[in-house]
């Protein structure tokens, strides 16, 4: 069965410093993995998606994530945080293998960016 664990519930960085949001997954086969962002009082927005092509996935707003099968990780990074990056980030694993079912969401990581 698939599952996803976001290792930090809250991450705080200073503006201009790197961002690292950690995510580990569990899947019995090659998963589809996503990162979504949710700004306060806004809907979920897709940041990026991994579907077994390149292991380094580039997303919007300068974010990227690297799929590491040996570590079962899909950490989200950004070289330099901006104040507008303050939001909640969700790592998501998709039910795959031909089943077009639902997504399994992590509990979320709240990112704070200090000036």
């Amino acid at each position: 069965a698939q599952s996803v664990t976001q290792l930090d519930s809250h991450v705080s960085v200073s503006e201009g410093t790197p961002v690292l949001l950690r995510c580990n997954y569990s899947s019995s086969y090659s998963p589809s993995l996503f990162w979504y962002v949710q700004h306060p009082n806004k809907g979920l927005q897709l940041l990026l998606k991994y579907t077994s092509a390149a292991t380094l996935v580039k997303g919007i707003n300068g974010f990227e994530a690297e799929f590491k099968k040996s570590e079962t990780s899909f950490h989200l990074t950004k070289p330099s945080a901006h104040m507008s990056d303050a939001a909640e980030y969700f790592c998501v694993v998709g039910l795959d293998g031909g089943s077009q079912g639902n997504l399994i969401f992590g509990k979320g990581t709240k990112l704070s960016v200090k000036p």
Partner: protein
Amino acid sequence: GAGVSQSPSNKVTEKGKDVELRCDPISGHTALYWYRQSLGQGLEFLIYFQGNSAPDKSGLPSDRFSAERTGGSVSTLTIQRTQQEDSAVYLCASSFVGGPSTDTQYFGPGTRLTVL
């Protein structure tokens, strides 16, 4: 093009009343999903529609919850005899199902339901 839309954006109701939440998916998307986001609980899958297939209702928390999708497009989530624990943000998403890998879901802004 237009994204997923949901209405109302906010709904306040009294305990015991019925509510209907509406979702308009992205045109051409064949799959539609409902989720619930409660404070401190994360996102919880409720129900999934794909084309003309029978919906996957495995996430509905009780028989007070039901959903339908008319004409393969608009969906309505109905909660009967609302309880205070139903208070949450209800999110709708849609996707185009076109291949073996999980398709990207696009989310609406949600309906914030408050049951007094």
